[in-house]
């Protein structure tokens, strides 16, 4: 990890340049299958993201927060985790969910309004509930990490935030606790430069990665559109956490190409030229060129990934539009582990009135 006081430290670590050429030591020890998997997940994630935006515009999802441009950050980080680890996501982490093995149809039930939080099993999948209140998932990640430490296992929590969440008290409290507890936690910040309509410059006057020093652990800034660099940096942070070294704050520099969500029109507040410049840093095109240049993969592999992505998008669409609303009984089914008698009486009354008993 680099030190805050090194002058070059605020330059994001980069292994692959935007044009796909080498920008650093790309021999990070990843087997070819993993190098392929990073690309495959990014392609599937982007195609699914496009499908979700369409589904939202068609009214099949209530609203959907897209992640176009952030595929490398999400896939690179999530792919560095092991089965027993866990992600505490924000609401914009579908690509991470895919990598963790969460069924995308189950995940999208959240955005279809079928259920809150985790319409999938958060424990089995190692992917905590989708979290909308900004930054509030980070204290949960710290607690989970403390639990892993108390259990004497080497599992690690990856707590996701965006640049906006670093202004929240929960970010500060969680980071401070993680430092004090030396918790096996990686705080993974996708700095996509926009918090709904608020640009980074109005969010903070400081540098996000550099705040780690104040909490007593390292911070690192990485090119969030360089999947290899993100994976490399996250792997190092996870290894550090696993071996008892404590937390790391990673700031992945990326860009939210789309609006905040399908209910937002970014054209009202954002210069389109800024978006065009960001598109030139596209993470998937960059990595594809790299793989082809380095002869790690061929066109056939690229086409196979795109075909698979097309298939996944179609299957997910078919399944999600067929997902019905839950029964009224579901309202009451999981509020309490030991439901009070008064609550059961209330349930019976409501179900009697609605004829769903």
């Amino acid at each position, binding site marked *: 990890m680099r030190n805050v006081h090194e002058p070059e430290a605020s330059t994001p670590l980069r292994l692959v340049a935007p044009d796909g050429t080498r920008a650093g030591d790309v021999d990070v020890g990843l087997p070819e299958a993993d190098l392929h998997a990073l690309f495959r997940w990014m392609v599937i994630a982007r195609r699914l993201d496009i499908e979700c935006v369409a589904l939202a515009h068609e009214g099949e999802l209530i609203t959907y927060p897209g992640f176009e441009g952030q595929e490398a950050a999400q896939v690179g980080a999530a792919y560095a985790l092991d089965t027993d680890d866990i992600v505490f996501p924000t609401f914009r982490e579908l690509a991470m969910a895919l990598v963790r093995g969460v069924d995308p149809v189950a995940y999208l039930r959240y955005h279809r309004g079928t259920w809150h939080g985790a319409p999938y099993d958060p424990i089995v999948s190692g992917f905590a509930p989708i979290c909308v209140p900004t930054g509030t998932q980070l204290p949960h990640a710290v*607690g989970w990490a403390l639990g892993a430490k108390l259990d004497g296992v080497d599992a690690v929590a990856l707590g996701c935030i965006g640049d906006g969440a670093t202004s929240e008290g929960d970010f500060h*409290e969680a980071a401070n606790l993680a430092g004090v507890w030396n918790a096996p936690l990686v705080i993974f910040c996708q700095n996509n430069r926009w918090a709904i309509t608020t640009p980074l410059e109005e969010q903070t006057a400081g540098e996000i990665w550099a705040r780690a020093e104040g909490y007593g652990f390292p911070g690192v800034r990485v090119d969030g559109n360089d999947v290899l660099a993100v994976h490399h940096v996250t792997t190092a942070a996870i290894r550090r956490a696993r071996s008892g070294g404590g937390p790391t704050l990673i700031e992945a520099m990326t860009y939210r190409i789309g609006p905040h969500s399908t209910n937002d029109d970014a054209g009202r507040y954002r210069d389109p030229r800024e978006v065009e410049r960001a598109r030139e840093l596209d993470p998937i095109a960059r990595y594809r060129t790299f793989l082809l240049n380095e002869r790690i993969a061929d066109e056939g592999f690229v086409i196979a990934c795109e075909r698979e992505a097309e298939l996944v998008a179609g299957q997910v669409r078919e399944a999600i539009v067929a997902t019905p609303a839950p029964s009224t009984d579901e309202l009451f089914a999981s509020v309490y582990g030991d439901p009070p008698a008064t609550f059961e009486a209330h349930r019976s009354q409501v179900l009697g009135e609605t004829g769903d008993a």
Partner: protein
Amino acid sequence: MPEVTMAGALNAALRDSLADDPKVLVYGEDVGRAGGIFGVTAGLQTEFGSERVFDVPISEAGFVGAAIGLAMRGYRPVVELQFDGFAYPALEQVLSHVAKYRNRTRGVCDMPIVLRMPAFGGLGGKEHHGESPETIYASTPGLKVVVPSSALDAYRLLRLAIDDPDPVVVLEPKARYRSSESGELTVAGAGIGRARELRAGADVAIATYGAMTQRALEAADRLAERGIQAHVLDLRSLAPLDVDAIAHAVTTTGRLVVVHEAPRSMGVGAEVAALAMEHAWNDLKAPVERVTGHDTPYPPGTLEARWLPSVDRICAAVGRTLA
């Protein structure tokens, strides 16, 4: 029978729970080394070690939120908030996550979290040290809320809260910490969701909780001198409320006075009055009376006696129901 204070009984409940279940953790500000501002956690860190009983930074949202992650890994965190008025920074975690997490995970993640805090007034304390926040918690689906009024019941309720699969807010009446009671510490008896009849009487029912149970009993003594027999009900569980006990009290007396420290508007008294109407309308002989704190911020110490429900005010309210 040995005599025990409420603080001592709570301490024993924590000790017994820590001993019975290795997944129980006790943490909060100044609970480890110091043993808590009121001594409720005294000696526990020495006995169980600093991995299970520990101090935390002044960071209520952070450490209450952390309880969720610990619960996801099978722990049963018993978290102390140092004072009622210092628990507010954690409210987003409590309302948005602690209360909802089980529902948000469709029952996959139980939240056996206990949030303990010294609550209510009566000690003439400084501002932010005498809050009655029960309505906030008790009106939030997913939470259970209990308020012990005596030492032995404090032991029972805290142990039951720790064993409960759901999050339980334990509001400990700080004015009663030093009160003592003789008897065996046991979980046997009334569970969460059950009220306790402290005194039988056929003329009027007084429903209350926390430190106000003492004033209700004093009022009942005074009323008895005038030939009025008051039934005194310690609600002790505000979420859920004991609807049957409230209905029974009204059915057998026909008159109900609800007493609590919290401000009158939107208070527990309003809910209890509504339940009385729903479940015992035909037996009510008079409008339900509420004797409560006033609809103002908690007063400075020198005005406390004019703010808290007094025996006089309780007796006057009873008189109105009999008029």
